[in-house]
């Protein structure tokens, strides 16, 4: 099989994976050095595909042969898909050639499970080792780890990779048991725990050998099982707290060819995925807890963003006097982000905040109007019911417009 044909199959198989971040690596450069590659901690998206996802890494599978039978996965063993397998050399060369042309920031390598977990993991580690040691490659490397693999292999993976990930795939143990019979949440958690233990060790002993400096991440598929957003966010929160994950990625389930009847035949609204990312950001950046965002069972509202949803459900905190409130509360106002909150605090040291300042800071004025007090402004809607405000502030119903091309077809 030609390299091009393999690439077609093995990149295709990776398109269900949402994560493509290349941030968080320590600064490295190749000035006056042999080899190639630099990282500046930020990560760069080098292109965007028409599905709106970025391309920052060469994201491929080493092979899509797989002995597992995960129902949501196109490469499950019972799926009748074309199969291919890269050699270690081929992956190394592709990464190198793409990197030189500035198509990518590095490699994100995952794999179907062949022969055994340990064998598969050894192959993944070997690619990373060859890149780092034989080719002095200093770009970003993200390895998907196989949870069942020997912890020593995971440790070795962390030596070469910037980031490791263990995918939890589904938010509850029951769903995993049902849809991914060969996987177990127990092993997945243990694998995440062992990575975190190594990361802690590295923090405590800075001179210890490098271990996954960009931390670990995971991915959850949304809409393949019946779990609601509340369950998903609570699981995410548990994972963040327990395993110091850098990110949880949410990937709306894509129906797959010859789909088994155990998974739905229609995808969830992409907007649901988007709302989960917004809520996730509130967990990580704003100090919200999952319980605050989702006090009851159900899904996040699609017509309003989760922060606005929280504010409407917690009117007692508002309107908030921007000249008095502390930074973390200001950041909880709909339409004001973390950076703006900080800027307002900085500005407050110089003078009192006025309505015009909010406009210059490019806040979403319509959204924040009912929730703030400034030196020259008090909201008229102070007493308006949350239902009424919601009707005024909600995005116009436009879910169908998310796929204008589909509409046109």
């Amino acid at each position: 099989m030609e390299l091009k044909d393999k690439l077609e199959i093995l990149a295709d198989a990776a398109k269900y994976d949402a994560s493509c971040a290349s941030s968080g690596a320590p600064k490295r450069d190749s000035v006056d050095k042999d080899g190639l590659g630099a990282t500046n901690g930020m990560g760069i998206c080098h292109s965007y595909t028409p599905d709106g996802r970025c391309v920052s890494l060469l994201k491929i599978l080493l092979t899509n042969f797989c002995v597992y039978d995960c129902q949501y996965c196109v490469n499950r063993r019972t799926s009748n898909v074309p199969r291919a397998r890269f050699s270690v050399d081929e992956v190394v060369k592709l990464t190198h050639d793409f990197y030189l042309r500035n198509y990518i920031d590095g490699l994100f390598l995952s794999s179907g499970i062949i022969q055994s977990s340990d064998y598969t993991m050894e192959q993944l580690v070997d690619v990373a080792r060859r890149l780092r040691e034989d080719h002095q490659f200093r770009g970003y490397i993200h390895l998907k780890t196989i949870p069942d693999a020997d912890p020593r292999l995971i440790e070795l993976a962390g030596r070469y990779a910037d980031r490791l990930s263990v995918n939890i795939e589904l938010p509850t143990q029951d769903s995993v048991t049902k849809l991914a019979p060969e996987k177990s949440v127990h092993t997945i958690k243990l694998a995440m725990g062992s990575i975190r233990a190594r990361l802690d060790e590295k923090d405590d002993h800075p001179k210890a050998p490098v271990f996954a400096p960009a931390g670990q991440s995971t991915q959850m598929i949304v809409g393949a099982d019946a779990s609601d957003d509340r369950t998903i966010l609570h699981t995410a929160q548990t994972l963040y707290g327990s395993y110091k994950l850098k990110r949880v990625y949410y990937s709306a389930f894509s129906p797959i060819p010859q789909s088994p009847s155990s998974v739905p035949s229609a995808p969830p609204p992409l907007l649901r995925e988007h709302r989960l990312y917004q809520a996730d950001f509130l967990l990580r950046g704003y100090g919200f807890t999952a319980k605050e965002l989702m006090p009851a069972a159900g899904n996040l509202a699609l017509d309003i963003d989760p922060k606005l949803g929280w504010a409407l459900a917690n009117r007692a905190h508002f309107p908030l006097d921007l000249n008095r409130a502390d930074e973390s509360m200001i950041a909880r106002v709909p339409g004001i982000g973390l950076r703006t909150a900080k800027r307002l605090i900085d500005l407050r040291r110089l003078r009192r905040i006025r309505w015009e300042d909010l406009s210059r800071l490019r806040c979403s004025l319509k959204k924040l109007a009912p929730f703030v007090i400034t030196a020259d402004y008090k909201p008229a809607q102070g007493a308006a019911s949350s239902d009424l405000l919601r009707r005024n502030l909600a995005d116009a119903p436009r879910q169908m417009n998310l796929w204008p091309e589909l509409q046109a077809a």
Partner: protein
Amino acid sequence: MMAVRRAVDTFAEWREAARELLVHGIPPEQVTWSAPHMDDLLAGGDLFTGAPPAAEASDNPSIPPPPTEPPDEPLRPAPHIPRSLMEMLQAAACCRVPDRWAFLYRVIWRWQQGEHDVQSPADEDGARLHAMVKAVHREEHDMHAYIRFRERPEEAGPPRFVAWYEPRHDVLPQVAEHFVSRMGKVSWMIATPEASVLWDGHTLHNTGPLVRDAADLEDTGEALWLTYYRSVFNPARLNTDVMHQHIPSHRWKNLPEAKIVPQMVSEAALGARKVGQYEAVGQRKGTTIPIAPDDAQPERQQPSKLDECRRCELWQFATQAVGGEGPKRAKIMFVGEQPGDQEDLAGQPFVGPAGKLLDRVCEAAGVDRDTIYVTNAVKHFKWEPRGKRRLHKTPVQREIEACHYWLDKELASVKPTVVVALGATALKSVLRTANVTLKDSLGKPLRHEGRWVVTTYHPSYVLRVPGEEAKRAAFNTMVEGLKLAHDLLHRPTETPDA
């Protein structure tokens, strides 16, 4: 009023000029700034053909005469400009707007006058300054991201890789640095309509403007990239708005993948009512993997019975259940509260800071820790989120009761003579009642269900209690408790049960 003229082309020149003007106290209204080289570039020269600018800028007679001498006024001290502002000014200076130097001087003048909110985006000038900086950073970012190198044949000599780009702001120098650090000793060239840089593997060379042909080469590597780009696209998620939002339209014309986007979009739209990728996958001959489900299941660490416990809800948030550890026939059993953050990861009781303290207590009491069986009243870690950490949360009576099942099993199998309850939760659990306080039971051994029960602090309490004095006292209490437990091993057990 004296009008002053200044001609500058670079930030360094502007900085010199601005400093001099500030020292002489000349307000922005009196200064006319010109940028001989840039004005030419903006006025003449076709950006797309890369025709060189009209003439040597500084010799152009249409340029105003050299600056007049500033008026004789008392000199002011040179301004102290904070680094953050200077960095913003330097970045904004790369922004191609005709009045950039005048604007920057107004900002720095206002700062000098004590108007420090000129640096805030809430100020009118500040907002513009921030916007200019943002535009420049965006341009740098885009150039880092969307430059595409093509490979030249090896026999053609350096540069091995060439790229064409049309930057909107003057960011080529800083962008060149980025690629120097990225490409190592590989030689490359970036050509733009205004200027070009060549990296020979060791040194950067600035060269003049070039035409696009310089970078229009056949490169077989590009075909693989297009294959990859096409294959990672998931037609079921077609969402071109986001794509366009991230790559502005003027960038697309120089991106190789732009050529295949329209076809990808229309194919996806046509096949939209089917499952997006069905067709692509269906074209090839597929393979299922003939393997029995049992063989696919690899050997791995199976959860223990304890791990499968669902007697309360705590299992959901813990990594694993943590059972007891120690000799199977230990005479003394420590019962703690519950595993903590470290124990939850390790799957062993008392391995964290509290465990270390427990070691010290044993040592001080002269008891060999290895002879003691150590366990917890509750087997799953209970916690609540606090930022990105897990904060220990005391288990409630219901959870303690649910976990009796496991503690009873341990007590029945180890058959300790003395149980040391570490802290209130352990005490409640061991005595099976909520109506008991740590304070009343400290140092008073009890008979319970045919065993001695000694109560002492939990090691975490010793770690947490404020004040050196209190810490030492609590530590000693624990040591006493352990000594007592040790003595009880040899005491007759006729005392009636408590």
